[in-house]
């Protein structure tokens, strides 16, 4: 657990969270590993975790009957995967598939939700950090939608 706490506290996402809260978060954490092409989660299933990717790459995908699996974004070392555990109805909106051998720290969303309900300061801290990531992803998605490199007619 000591190792997990150290790993988590070194990650920018948990920067300056404070020792007491780090212990609470670590209590909900575990090491996980995914083989290449293994699905980490599937669209529509219950979202009860988020992941801190330590190594490897993960593709966020949507399946379309006409086009197959469409990759919307890839995430890699240091990235946070998943925020659906935080927002009702707590179900995944995309598929996540490991592209390479991927090692991550999984954080139990149910466990964290309960702790956030008990301590709103912790809840606010986590929400601020997730809002920052959501903002970054929204900005990236907007740039992707602009099709910047296309030929203007």
């Amino acid at each position, binding site marked *: 657990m000591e190792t997990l706490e150290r790993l988590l506290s070194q990650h920018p996402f948990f920067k300056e969270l404070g020792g007491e809260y780090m212990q609470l978060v670590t209590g909900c954490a575990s090491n996980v590993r995914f083989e290449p092409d293994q699905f980490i989660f599937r669209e529509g299933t219950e979202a009860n975790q988020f992941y801190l990717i330590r190594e490897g790459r993960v593709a966020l995908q949507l399946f379309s009957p006409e086009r197959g699996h469409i990759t919307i974004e*890839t995430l890699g070392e240091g990235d946070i995967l998943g925020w659906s555990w935080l927002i009702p109805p707590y179900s995944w909106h995309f598929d996540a598939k490991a592209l390479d051998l991927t090692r991550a720290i999984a954080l139990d969303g149910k466990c964290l939700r309960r702790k956030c309900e008990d301590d709103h300061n912790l809840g606010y801290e986590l929400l601020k950090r997730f809002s920052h990531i959501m903002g970054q992803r929204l900005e*990236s998605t907007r*740039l992707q939608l602009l099709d910047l490199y296309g030929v203007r007619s």
Partner: protein
Amino acid sequence: MVPRPYVVKRMRKDTVDTFTLELGPKDGRSRFSFAPGQFNMIYIYGVGEVPISICGDPSSSTLVHTTRAVGAVTKAMSKLRRGDIVGIRGPFGTSWPVEQARTRDVVVVAGGIGLPPLRPALYHLLAHRDAYGKVVLLYGTSTPDDILFKEELENWRARFDLEVFVTVDRGTPGWRGNVGVVTTLITKAGFDPTNTIAMIVGPEVMMRFTALELMKRGVKAETIYVSMERNMKCGIGLCGHCQFGPLFTCKDGPVFRYDQIKDLLVKWEI
């Protein structure tokens, strides 16, 4: 300035709308020297003249230009064959700060057709590799089919002294590489933001957001350089076609220090 005739030595189609011309002086004399980042005015006889960045190796004997067929002149250029003649005026404009970057880390960020103007700088950095710290290339395109110089990128990626990251905005079936905008690569690359020179080429929006992301990571605006594209005509700051606020892109640019133009980039009126 009178265009000097150059012969097409080789014509290569890179992607569905992008091509590369390899040119040599018609008179057989050696070509002019150029600095990475400079551009030429290429004249297609009877059609017109366009400014195009030089994209080849500064130490090579030929002149290389890679561009996209989008207007009347570049469409005519895309139909050139070996042995055809074009007129060349140049080289014009400012260059990448490859001397100033010595001993520092260098981050090169290219978006779409922005890779060719950066290629001479990369050749220079690699030819004088010991003079620089870490060298990182971040390259984003729309789709995997739009990636330029694939073979060269693979060779560069295989080097131990160059970090290469490629991403596309939209993946295609079978693509296992990165998907996402080029700015997302900035957090992946290993460089010291306090001792880095960044060189960026791409659409203006991409360059703005890339510069912002680099600054978020700690790179100073004074050490970020961008290459601007405007309607260059004379190439020597006389005609005024490429005026960019108080600057002329052909003479004061195309390579500008970001802090000198960042306020102009967000002015709609210019």
